[in-house]
């Protein structure tokens, strides 16, 4: 059967279980009701878009908003702890605050912000014009947005979740948390979880199947690699939390017995399921940031990444070993000596690939012509702060030490160093590095320096004292510290709590400057140069911001750091071989434009992702308040699925601009964005 030569017509199959097979109809045969939207301007061009760049920007904007929300919650927590016997928050509100702070930061900021970068830059970095499943991509974004809103509406509908972000049972049962908060939390995470799952499938297929010619796996940028590992972790970790959340919601909403100790339930069931998800989750949080700084460090050291293969494989190793360490979160729960020993050893093992990465980044800097832009500052900040957090992490791998530190501020110090110092600082490196690519304007470097140094000092000021607090025995989640228990001298709790509070406001000031920077930059008329950082990877081989179709002609890749190798060639001189600049970015772009494809069809926008995504919070409200509402939601869902399936594959021909004769590439796609 080797005679089939034409490209396959691959239907836009939903790719998940809820999908019915699509009808591949030609536009002219389409049912009138299921026409595809075609607006290129106005709100419709955003709401119905399937363009990975627009979705990436929306992911970014929404996550940034939730970052501010989560930050506000953090500040309230720190205010409450700023003085002895403080009354800024009631104990009940305080519980909700730290639960929602963690939930928001993890699920509504760090993960989706990494997804924003993945959405925007993965297709560009591997040389594709969009992701493999554009409509599913849109579905993922809307699910995330609606899930996040749903989660936060609990504040006004009877109080937010108050069980801590890991929501241990039996504390999460209705007896101990009678408000609807935990129901909102469970169902909200279920919705954002679906977003992560479909996003993971989509991005993995994109990386495996949509690479430009010549872009072998070992020529992919490290960011793409780290995203690949992250998406695999999501793919396999999300179903585990899904199970746990279903068990909990069946218990809370339908009276199931899963965590009912009276009936003989084992509270460790929840802990295991949560941490089987939860530990891969921490790598899901950190690996995208590792990917970003692996792009930023070589660019601003003007050297290739030291040991590319080691960085890639150690990332994959972290992803693998990360599955065998979950019970180190449970050393204090009485697992038994064998389990503790096994998980303790496995945990120490994770330090090896992580250490490899730190070494590689440091050696990338070694001997490089360092250029201290704000992005570079943040990237180096990640190395420093993550190493501190990593070292305290290794001490927790030792079960006897961990048993002392469990549920104290020492743990809080550790994971904030790795999450804020590692993941968040990495994302900020990404903002400064890629801003000119996304918006065509450089963020102000002057404000950027303030942004960086305030955040860097703020992080240390906030979280370093928590090591002391923890060692002194201040428990996590403690709502007040009484004056009489603060102790005296250098190690008194009151002083260090106040230092941490000052630190948290320093971070907030840094973030505020970042927000100001965004507005200042938006007002700026001056355009960024095409290649402001002398960058190395494919995403810089297109206009800034990229054209709707990313590349005029799909580049053929010959090497790792393809763009760099097009700009520079090795020339033999008297002093040995030297790199000489042979082309500018503008010349390369002009070449690509000249060789541009004449007709580029991009995926048409669609109504159905947002409709389908909207049905889920409706169902979820129904589960909490009235099952009739769930029936309505299910109706919307069925409508959405049918619309999705019966939607014509592309917008009607008459909706396109007629192809312009001989006037450069891709005129016709201009109207379909």
């Amino acid at each position: 059967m080797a005679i089939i030569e034409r490209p396959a017509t691959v239907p836009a199959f939903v790719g998940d279980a809820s999908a019915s097979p699509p009808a591949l109809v030609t536009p002219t045969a389409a049912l009138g009701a299921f026409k595809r939207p075609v607006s290129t301007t106005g709100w419709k061009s955003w709401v119905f878009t399937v363009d990975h760049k627009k979705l990436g920007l929306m992911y970014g904007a929404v996550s940034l908003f939730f970052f501010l929300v989560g930050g506000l919650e953090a500040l309230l927590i720190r205010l409450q702890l700023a003085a002895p016997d403080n009354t800024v928050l009631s104990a009940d509100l305080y519980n909700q605050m730290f639960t929602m702070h963690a939930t928001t930061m993890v699920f509504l900021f760090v993960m989706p912000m990494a997804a924003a970068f993945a959405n925007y830059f993965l297709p560009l970095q591997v040389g594709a014009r969009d992701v493999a499943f554009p409509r599913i991509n849109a579905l993922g974004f809307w699910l995330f947005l609606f899930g996040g809103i749903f989660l936060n509406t609990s504040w006004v509908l009877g109080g937010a979740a108050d069980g801590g972000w890991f929501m241990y049972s039996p504390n999460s049962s209705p007896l101990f948390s009678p408000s609807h908060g935990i129901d909102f939390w469970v169902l909200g995470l279920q919705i954002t979880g679906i977003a992560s799952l479909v996003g993971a499938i989509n991005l993995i297929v994109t990386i495996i199947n949509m690479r430009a010619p010549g872009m072998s796996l070992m020529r992919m940028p490290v960011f793409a690699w780290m995203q690949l590992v992250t998406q695999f972790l999501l793919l396999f970790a999300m179903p585990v939390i899904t199970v746990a959340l279903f068990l909990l919601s069946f218990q809370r909403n339908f009276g199931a017995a899963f965590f009912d100790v009276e009936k003989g339930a084992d509270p460790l069931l929840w802990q295991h399921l949560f941490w089987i998800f939860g530990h891969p989750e921490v790598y899901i949080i950190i690996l995208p940031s590792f990917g970003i700084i692996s792009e930023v460090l070589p660019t601003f050291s003007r050297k290739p990444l030291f040991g590319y293969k080691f960085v890639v494989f150690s990332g994959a190793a972290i992803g693998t070993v990360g599955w065998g360490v979950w019970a180190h979160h449970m050393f204090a729960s009485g697992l038994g000596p064998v389990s503790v020993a096994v998980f303790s050893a496995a945990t120490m093992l994770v330090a090896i690939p992580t250490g490899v990465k730190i070494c590689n980044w440091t050696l990338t800097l070694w001997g490089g012509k360092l250029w201290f832009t704000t992005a570079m500052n943040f990237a180096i900040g990640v190395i420093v702060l993550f190493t501190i957090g990593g070292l305290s992490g290794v001490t927790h791998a030792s079960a006897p030490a961990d048993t002392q530190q469990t549920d104290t501020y020492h743990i809080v110090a550790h994971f904030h160093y790795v999450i804020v110092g590692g993941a968040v600082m990495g994302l900020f490196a990404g903002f400064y590095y890629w801003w000119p690519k996304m918006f065509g304007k450089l963020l102000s470097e002057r404000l950027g320096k303030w942004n960086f140094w305030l955040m860097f000092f703020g992080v240390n000021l906030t979280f370093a004292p928590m090591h002391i607090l923890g060692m002194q025995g201040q428990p996590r989640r403690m709502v007040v510290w009484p004056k009489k228990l603060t102790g005296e001298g250098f190690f008194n709790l009151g002083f260090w709590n106040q230092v941490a509070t000052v630190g948290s406001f320093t971070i907030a000031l840094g973030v505020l400057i970042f927000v100001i920077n965004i507005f200042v930059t938006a007002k700026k008329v001056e355009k960024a140069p095409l290649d402001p950082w002398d960058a190395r990877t494919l995403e810089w081989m297109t206009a800034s911001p990229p054209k709707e179709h990313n590349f005029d002609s799909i580049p053929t890749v010959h090497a790792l750091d393809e763009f760099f190798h097009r700009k520079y060639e090795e020339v033999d001189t008297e002093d040995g071989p030297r790199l000489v600049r042979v082309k500018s970015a503008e010349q390369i772009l002009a070449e690509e434009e000249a060789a541009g494809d004449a007709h580029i069809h991009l995926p048409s926008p669609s109504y159905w992702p947002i409709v389908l995504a909207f049905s889920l919070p409706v169902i979820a409200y129904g589960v909490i308040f009235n099952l009739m509402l769930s029936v309505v939601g299910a109706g919307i869902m069925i409508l959405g699925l049918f619309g999705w399936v019966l939607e014509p594959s592309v917008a009607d021909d008459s909706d396109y601009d007629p192809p312009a004769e001989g006037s450069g590439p891709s005129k016709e796609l201009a109207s379909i964005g």
Partner: protein
Amino acid sequence: MADITIHEGAAAPADHGHDDHGHDDHGGAHVTSTGLSNNKLAMWLFLGSECLLFGGLISTYMLYRGRHGGGPGPAQVFDIPLTSVSSFVLLMSSLTMVLAVNSAKRLDDRNTRLWLMATALLGALFVGGQVYEFTAFYQEGLGFTTSLFSSSFFTLTGFHGVHVTLGVVMLIALAAIIGRGRISGDKAEVVEMVGLYWHFVDVVWVVIFTLVYLIPA
């Protein structure tokens, strides 16, 4: 279908002159980097992910199967002859499913629809058996909230039942869409995709049948 236009755009410029040398190592490599269908790859990834979902539910059941307090336990309620019959029914639906896929590959619409409907019918029969089973259990005093055993049993088999029900809906919709000629692209692949999902649901039942019903607690 939206996706396909990207592939064409991405790897094969509209002017087909200069992409014809790309497919010597894998047949059709000019479609995707690996030459494999995006949809099938996505489906297999999804099924890999589903392993962790059902694994979690099965493990929860295994952990709790002996904890039935005062209520009836597995040995009292399970009706092995009935479950064996419904297991057999589901197993045979996998046969009709592969026959549908083969018919679709032969471009034999009539038989494709016939076998799809046969599969849906067998699937519905299985779900019917499950509804009967649940009702019988309930009458024997095993409610969803009765004990840890009952909660985890109904959750596990209920999840599976929902998967089968979704599959039945997909099969019927697919047969209808094929009947109305609304698939103009690669029909065989669409049928195959639904088939993969269906077989996976069957394979999960193979595991549940043994671990839950046959191996004594």
